[in-house]
């Protein structure tokens, strides 16, 4: 049996895109394979690790647990919408300064969750507990990620 194809339109990182997708395709795979936005990483593909976290209409969500067809008409933000290598965003800079990453596999998902938390005005405690709790990092032992979040929240987020 062949899978049905549908054309979907989304706003991805501020740009209007239109793409043909199999109805069974995951949003994570369409972002990576079709749109070539490989900053979104894929670890477990059942919602547990958090590597694939992106923003859908301003809320953090697992892109491995959304069918791409479901994103038709949505506004998507991925890690590519943050700073660039030559000009990091304030949050990315806090991660760099505090050595908040090693291999970087988990980092893009964590950054996107933190963007949502910052926009929704979550306090530091909520962010360190609940928000970071939705991510698994195999390298850092979390201490430096927490230090980066604390530094960023102290500097940039008005409490």
């Amino acid at each position, binding site marked *: *049996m*062949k*899978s*049905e194809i*549908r054309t979907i339109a989304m706003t991805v990182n501020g740009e209007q895109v239109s793409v043909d997708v*199999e*109805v*069974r*395709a*995951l949003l994570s*795979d369409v972002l990576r394979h079709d749109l070539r936005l490989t900053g979104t990483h894929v670890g477990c*593909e*059942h*919602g547990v690790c*958090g590597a694939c*976290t992106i923003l*859908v209409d301003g*809320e*953090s*969500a*697992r892109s*491995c*647990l*959304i*069918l791409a*067809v*479901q994103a038709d008409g949505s506004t998507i933000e991925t890690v590519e919408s943050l700073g660039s290598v030559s000009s990091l965003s304030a949050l990315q800079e806090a991660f760099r300064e505090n050595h908040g990453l090693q291999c970087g596999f988990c980092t893009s998902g964590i950054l996107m*969750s933190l963007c*949502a*938390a910052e926009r929704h005005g979550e306090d530091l405690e909520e962010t360190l*507990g*609940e*928000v970071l*709790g*939705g991510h698994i990092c195999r390298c850092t032992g979390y201490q430096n990620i927490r230090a980066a979040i604390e530094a960023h929240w102290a500097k940039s987020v008005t409490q």
Partner: protein
Amino acid sequence: MKPPVFEYRDPRSLDEALGLLNEYGDDSSILAGGQSLIPLLNLRLARPDYVIDINKVPGLDTIEVLPGCVRVGALTRIRRLERDPKIRAVAPALSDAFQNIAHPQIRSRTTIGGNISHADPSSELPGVLAAYDGRVQLTSSSGSRWVSWSDFFVTVFTTTRESNELLTAVEFPTDQNFSYEFEEIARRPGDYPLAGVCAGISLDGSQVRAARLSAIAIADRPIRMTAAESALVGVDISNAAVRQAASQAAAAEINPMDDEHGSAAFRRGLVSTLVKRTLDRLAGVPS
């Protein structure tokens, strides 16, 4: 490609969705938040011929705080529910339970209808629905019916919903002067609980008029602990020995099983502790 091939339907009205369910029934899966169904598709543990995505059905994402109950439409996301000040004002234990479901990144998609329909015995909400003596609304092309929680949950992942029915709303009664507390123990915040308890009491001064205690992750479906409830009726909640007796009655009446997360004795201990803690809070005593 992770999920198996299926035909995708995204009905734009309730009638259309119910018509599709009538036609495809057991060969289809309803897609709501997708936070349980899509993992099952990705792991190919589910292979439906049709996926009926109800996210575009209008009118199912309602929150109503009515005189005697909180009534929530099936498509309402948990993230929205946990932030709702009107629910927190009348049913704070329900808001606490919402915040114990998974992580914020999962709750942004999870719907109340999907969570309850999934009937995972480790899920918080089915147990909270049991403590509130709540009910669900099931709708098919031939009409709607309300089913109490005890007639809805059958066993693990199994309910009395017919394959042509959609769960359309969930109702938590808030009358009768009941106050509730919810608490769970999980390995990490956001994990499924090893055990959870929702306790409600109705007081006349400090005398217990009625009690409702449910346990989560203890049996193949949410259960009420009726021996502990009976032990509380008529007694003075401010008496610590009474609360202790109820927590012992709870531990004695449940039948948890050993599994990879812990032994039956360990779970019995957790439930006993949680009953004690929730009752202490209801009595206004710090645990």
